[in-house]
């Protein structure tokens, strides 16, 4: 091409489009005509108008091309749809098996994905979310292990904002204990009381419904409340400017109402107040030495996280020498990662282990895969009945591409049909599913994300299910199909065998997992935890009941249902202090730390923890500088007879007065550690008044009566406070919420996997035995006994299931041992579980195929051989 030609060549992109629209087939091409006219226009009217004309032609050609394509594809689509309906009707039984399998699979996928989507959506609604981080403290404990906590000292917030340029804003937020709120007659206990800095509302996105952000915290008694609380306490009135009574103690003025906190927020609150009141009454809580606040910082765009972390750590070290010596480090945790990070000490809200998310994503994928396998197996097995159709189609001129398209469209239709049913079912089933996951998720079918995800699921399902059958069926040579009665696909069933083995392997694996999870949960439930967890109710200390504890106790003890009563600052199992200890015979070297628990009179008797030797704190004996320890501590100290021996706790010389049995007050994820107990009579203090507990050992046979008795005493002493009780049993169950959810989900999905696999196997055997009916007939006429034929038909199945078991056992063994290792105390999965599952899987397999096998074996050969 010379320069002159290039001068008159049309726009490159446009001619490329043209080349696509009119592929060169060696004949006359319109591109040449366009080109010539373009050149002419260039010469006569100039390049610009020539270009405009050329582009106009391109546009028209595109429009025409699309029209043409859609017209013909519509026609072909209509035809294919007709074939789909015909085939569906002709083979209703197999089509139903296919659809049922797919429906079950897709429902599981929808449910699991909505749940995972919810879990992963935590804290993603904040406008500044990408730049908000939570400050974490990382330190090494006495054993040299790294501990990460979300607690930071209160002054860090101001220091960070003032001294670090990257920090745009910072705030603290903390959740407070459950207290009653009151507006005239309306009084309830509320969980969502929290305290924050005014900047909290600027950093995070919790929009106001009424009131203004500027005077939300105009004075220390100003609070903002959620829409929910506003409705609850003020019904239809406008709450702005109204007073709300807090804890029967202070009156707060409501300055604003915000929209209820979304469910996917790790920060959950209904009432927000400032730190001022707390700071006035407890200045020590606001020093560099007290790690008791959650600090959030908002950084400038593209800040260097490592640099900010280093600066934060430096500020901490400068203000608290102890932290420097102990090498405390401050870290930043992105807001959206809070919900999916485990292992952080004192976490605010429940978090989800990414492991569980991955497990369930795989389960969803596998279940869908099982359903697709059914489709593949049945379609390829049925190839014989469709081979003639394909042969005729090919002879009439259908290209392979068109046959593939036809089968893919068929599988896509099946998937779509299944999807519609599945979506409806998912909406119906989501409340049930919520019961297992403990969430309140709803499905919005017309949500864009849902539709997009649906389209993806639908296409992957349709293509995964239809791809192999389409390739196989379209590969048939029309000559050989039409000449012989055998379809090529019916003999090459190796893939089908592999797929059936895979289905069984998955089902067996899930059965074993479910059994082991249940064994572990049962172990937890049945385990002798060392205290009367079923008998103990506890109430929160409020108002007078702390001061009048002795009176209350006496009153309560008058009731025959009540065995014992004690008071404690924290729940059993919760410890705040670890102290260095020393005893006679300690090997010199590293210092030894132990948990120190503050308890009151009759604690062990109330909790039902046995005393091995010595005694506990009683009113008849002096209590100063005395220590009780658990078995584990006694073992650690390695003293012959610890009772009466001296022990130094934080340098104070104390006497050991008793040893008690070990009790699993924490969850079984943790090992029992040495615990020390000392007497603390702080029941009249403010702290106790806010978060102390009274424990009552009751008679389980008359539980309701005991609660009544406690309630009566409560109202005698605390007439202004609503009565409320909880049980240690609930608390205990709460520790295994994650595991219970896991068990529930495993349970359902195992059943689903088995159902899908059996459905597929049933369909497959129904088909293959039908295909072999002639063979069986001949065998019978030649003298084979029915039992021989049954064994003959079942032989393969036993082989498959046996292989499936062998493949999956090691995999499950590995996975489940990893899971069990998360527990300090766990069951050891025995070989019996595996063997039992193997036998069960055989039984399931037999039951599934038995109907068809028996039918085939018992059939009179005359019937099968009559027509030839």
């Amino acid at each position, binding site marked *: 091409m010379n320069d002159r030609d290039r001068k008159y060549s049309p726009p490159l992109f446009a001619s490329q489009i043209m080349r696509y629209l009119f592929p060169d087939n060696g*004949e*006359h091409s319109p591109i040449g005509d366009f080109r010539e*006219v373009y050149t002419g226009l260039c010469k006569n009217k100039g390049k610009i108008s020539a270009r405009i004309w050329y582009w106009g032609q391109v546009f028209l050609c595109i429009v025409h091309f699309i029209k043409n394509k859609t017209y013909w594809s519509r026609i072909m689509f209509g035809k294919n749809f007709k074939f789909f309906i015909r085939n569906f009707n002709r083979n209703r039984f197999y089509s139903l098996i296919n659809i049922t399998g797919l429906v079950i699979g897709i429902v599981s996928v929808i449910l699991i994905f909505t749940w995972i989507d919810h879990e992963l959506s935590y804290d993603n609604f904040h406008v500044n979310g990408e730049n908000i981080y939570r400050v974490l403290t990382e330190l090494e404990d006495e054993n040299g292990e790294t501990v990460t906590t979300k607690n930071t000292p209160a002054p860090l917030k101001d220091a960070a904002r003032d001294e670090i340029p990257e920090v745009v804003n910072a705030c603290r937020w903390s959740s407070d204990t459950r207290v009653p709120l009151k507006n005239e007659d309306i009084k309830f206990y509320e969980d969502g009381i929290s305290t924050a800095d005014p900047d909290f509302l600027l950093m995070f996105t919790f929009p106001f419904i009424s009131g203004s952000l500027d005077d939300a915290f105009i004075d220390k008694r100003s609070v903002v409340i959620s829409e929910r609380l506003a409705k609850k306490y003020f019904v239809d009135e406008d709450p702005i400017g109204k007073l709300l009574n807090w804890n029967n103690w202070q009156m707060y003025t409501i300055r604003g109402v915000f929209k209820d906190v979304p469910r996917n927020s790790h920060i959950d609150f209904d009432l927000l107040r400032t730190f001022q009141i707390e700071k006035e009454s407890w200045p020590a809580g606001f020093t560099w030495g007290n790690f008791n606040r959650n600090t959030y910082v908002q950084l400038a765009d593209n800040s260097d996280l490592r640099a900010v972390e280093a600066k934060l750590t430096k500020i901490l070290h400068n203000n608290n020498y102890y932290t420097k010596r102990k090498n405390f480090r401050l870290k930043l945790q992105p807001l959206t990662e809070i919900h999916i990070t485990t292992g952080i000490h004192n976490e605010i809200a429940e978090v989800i282990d990414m492991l569980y998310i991955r497990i369930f994503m795989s389960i969803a994928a596998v279940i869908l895969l099982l359903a697709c396998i059914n489709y593949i197996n049945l379609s390829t097995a049925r190839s014989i009945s469709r081979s003639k159709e394909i042969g005729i189609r090919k002879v009439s001129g259908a290209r392979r591409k068109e046959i593939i398209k036809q089968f893919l469209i068929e599988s896509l239709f099946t998937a779509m049909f299944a999807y519609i049913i599945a979506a409806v079912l998912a909406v119906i089933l989501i409340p049930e599913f919520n019961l297992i996951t403990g969430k309140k998720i709803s499905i919005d079918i017309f949500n864009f994300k849902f539709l997009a995800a649906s389209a993806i699921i639908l296409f992957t399902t349709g293509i995964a299910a239809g791809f192999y059958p389409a390739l196989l069926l379209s590969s048939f040579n029309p000559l050989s199909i039409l000449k012989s009665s055998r379809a090529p696909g019916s003999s090459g069933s190796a893939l089908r065998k592999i797929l059936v083995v895979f289905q069984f392997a998955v089902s067996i694996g899930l059965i074993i997992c479910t059994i082991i999870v249940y064994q572990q949960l049962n172990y937890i439930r049945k385990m002798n935890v060392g205290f009367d967890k079923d008998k103990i109710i506890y109430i929160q200390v409020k108002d007078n009941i702390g001061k009048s504890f002795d009176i209350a106790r006496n009153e309560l003890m008058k009731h025959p249902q009540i065995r014992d009563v004690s008071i404690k600052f924290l729940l059993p199992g919760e410890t705040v202090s670890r102290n260095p200890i020393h005893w006679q015979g300690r090997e010199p070297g590293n210092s030894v730390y132990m948990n120190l628990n503050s308890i009151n009179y009759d604690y062990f008797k109330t909790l039902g923890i046995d005393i091995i030797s010595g005694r506990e704190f009683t009113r008849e004996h002096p209590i100063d500088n005395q220590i009780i320890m658990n078995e584990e501590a006694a073992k650690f100290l390695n003293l012959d007879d610890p009772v009466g021996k001296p022990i130094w706790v934080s340098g104070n010389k104390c006497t050991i007065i008793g040893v008690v049995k070990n009790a699993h007050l924490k969850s079984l994820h943790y090992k029992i550690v040495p615990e020390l107990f000392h007497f603390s009579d702080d029941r009249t203090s403010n702290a106790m008044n806010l978060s102390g507990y009274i424990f009552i050992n009751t008679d389980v046979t008359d539980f309701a009566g005991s609660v009544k008795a406690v309630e009566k005493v409560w109202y005698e002493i605390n007439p202004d406070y609503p009565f409320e009780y909880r049980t240690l049993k609930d608390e205990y169950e709460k520790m295994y919420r994650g595991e219970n959810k896991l068990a529930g989900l495993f349970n359902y999905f195992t059943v689903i996997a088995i159902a899908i696999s059996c459905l597929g196997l049933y369909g497959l055997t129904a088909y293959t035995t039908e295909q072999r009916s002639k063979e069986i007939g001949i065998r019978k006429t030649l003298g084979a006994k029915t039992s021989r034929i049954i064994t003959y038909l079942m032989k393969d199945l036993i082989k498959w299931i046996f292989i499936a078991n062998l493949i999956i056992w090691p995999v499950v063994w590995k996975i489940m041992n990893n899971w069990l290792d998360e527990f300090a105390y766990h069951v050891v999965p025995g070989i019996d579980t595996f063997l039992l599952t193997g036998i069960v899987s055989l039984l399931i397999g037999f039951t599934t195929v038995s109907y068809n096998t028996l039918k085939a074996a018992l059939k009179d050969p005359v019937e099968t051989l009559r027509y030839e």
Partner: protein
Amino acid sequence: MKLLSRQEELVLIAVWRLQDNAYSVTIREKVAELTAHDWSFGAIYDPLERLEKKKLLNAVFSDPSPERGGKRKKMYSITSEGLKALVGIKNLQESVWNGINKSMLKNLI
């Protein structure tokens, strides 16, 4: 005799008139000139194809030329059947119009 459509007739006449230089671009121009309307290529291709099928036109490929971006021209020429068809159309036209007085159309022309 099969009747031709108006487009086919126009295209056929254009090819005949163009004699040795009849191919898509010139035909389109000629038709446009004759009818004083703009014609798209699509409106030319179809009649050409049909006329070729009816053996009223003959087509030969010329050598590729650079001004057409290396694409070949399809040169058309009218066959004797084509000429016969044109004559037939003309006769038909005239016989149909025969007997209509010019004064009847006076107001319209």
